[in-house]
């Protein structure tokens, strides 16, 4: 059934034990996102080095299993990537959640793609797409944040 596709083991596991659910104390970029309709909120912290590579990424917030799992998987994948690679992955992910049948980015390894594809069940639940994409949009805001 659809529900099984939506709530796969890996999503439930990430939802229950989200990775990087903490605050990077020496972050240099951050952004907050919220979904006013449901009250979900997320705060993404980035630590970028001189080459604009993500040395650390973390998040704080609360939300449903889908949003927590999505943020958790995202932080796992983005760590170690540079800004441009990260943004390409975000674009690819958002495309997959909305319309594309699969992920195209060459910046993702096969096992990373498999992990991300677990979230593709959300497609059948239009009201839940925002849950899955909130942290990703917030990540882009964090990258684009202007801070002295």
């Amino acid at each position, binding site marked *: 059934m659809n529900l099984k596709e939506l709530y796969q083991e890996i999503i439930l596991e990430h939802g229950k034990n989200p990775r990087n659910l903490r605050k990077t104390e020496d972050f240099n970029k951050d952004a907050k996102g919220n979904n006013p309709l449901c009250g979900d*909120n997320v705060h993404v912290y980035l630590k970028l080095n001189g080459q604009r590579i993500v040395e650390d990424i973390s998040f704080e917030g609360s939300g449903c299993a889908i949003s927590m799992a999505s943020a958790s998987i995202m932080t796992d994948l983005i760590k170690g990537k540079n800004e441009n690679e990260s943004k390409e992955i975000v674009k690819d992910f958002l495309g997959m959640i909305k319309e594309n049948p699969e992920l195209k980015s060459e910046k993702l390894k096969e096992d990373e793609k498999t992990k991300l594809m677990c979230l593709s069940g959300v497609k059948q639940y239009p009201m839940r797409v925002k*849950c899955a994409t909130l942290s990703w949009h917030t990540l882009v805001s964090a990258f684009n944040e202007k801070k002295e």
Partner: protein
Amino acid sequence: MNIDHIKKEFPIFDEKIQNNDLVYLDSANSSQKPKIVVDRINEFYTKQFSNVGRSVHYLAVAATNLYENTRTSVQKYINAKDKNEIVFTKGATEALNLVANTLGQNYLQEGDEVLITELEHHSNYVPWHFLRKSKNIKINFAEINEEGEITLEEIVKKITPKTKLISITHLSNVTGAILPVKEITELAHSKGIIVVVDGCQGAPHLKLDMQDLDCDFYAISCHKMYGPTGLGVLYGKKKWLEELPPYQGGGGMISEVKKDRISYGDLPNKYEAGTMATAQVIAFDQSIKFLESIGIENVMRHEADLVEYGQELLQKNNSVKLIGNPKNKGGVLSFTIEGVHSHDIATILDEDGVAIRAGHHCCQILHDKLNIPASARASVGIYNTKEDLDQLNDSINNCKKIFNL
């Protein structure tokens, strides 16, 4: 009273929702519509349509009479003293904004205090917040007790010499607490304080008697009352509606318009600028007839039975935690499940055709107080049965299974 017969009056229950029978437990959000209401809208547009209160042709006069008939029905249904105390608005939200805006223009001054409660829906907080910004009034919050109630004692505690107005819900859309509005009003009036009541949840589920309640304003949402969307009612005591300025300017609300002066129309036209939700008003008469045909006492007894049954069921269900336990409770069962977010609950229940609400239900202040980001809410209407609540419980168990609880 035969609920199966009542349910048959609602065409939506003939529909399969994603191959399921609909178990509609979202009436606090909006109620379903009986056939007579739906048919009345169709009939009006098909055979009787005209704008009201303007032209003199046959259809216009007939439509105006129908429109005014509903005003009289509402007056009788809520036992208001005067027909002109009934103002149609685009919803309860507009009704509350109308009150805040006009009292803000003519009555409330800098430093005055408005007392609301932690139970309030955003529509009974944000309009007062506008006045906090524009006029520097202060907003105080009466706090809930352990059971999710607002007691008279708490209101007494929060009244200060500067309190000019108390604006409270009649029935909480989250904890289900029914507030002692009559007692609060009596107390407030003894101190010269105005009382505004958000009756969104009260009007569909409680017996209304404005003269007995004695509040100054009462806001009603018609779509929660088996009526059409886009329509609300503001009850206001005549002395206030006469004294306060108009809310919106436009056609229909004026008496005379010159280049250098404008005078406003009499009640209730003064507050009904522009073409109103005519078909909705006319169809709302059928909603009142529907409620009257059942009898509000019967509605209240049926819904009280359902809530008691649902409460017992959910209390017995491990890991389900009910929000609030008020002595005087309306048809709302809000809950959380340890380890499952309310959106996940709602999505999983939906798969079985069980429609509930998830989120903060426009009550972020309350959810902050309870220290939860969101909750799930099942709310009942006249068409619900104990079987619906059994299905709710079964689907909650399925949800727990999916989450390995």
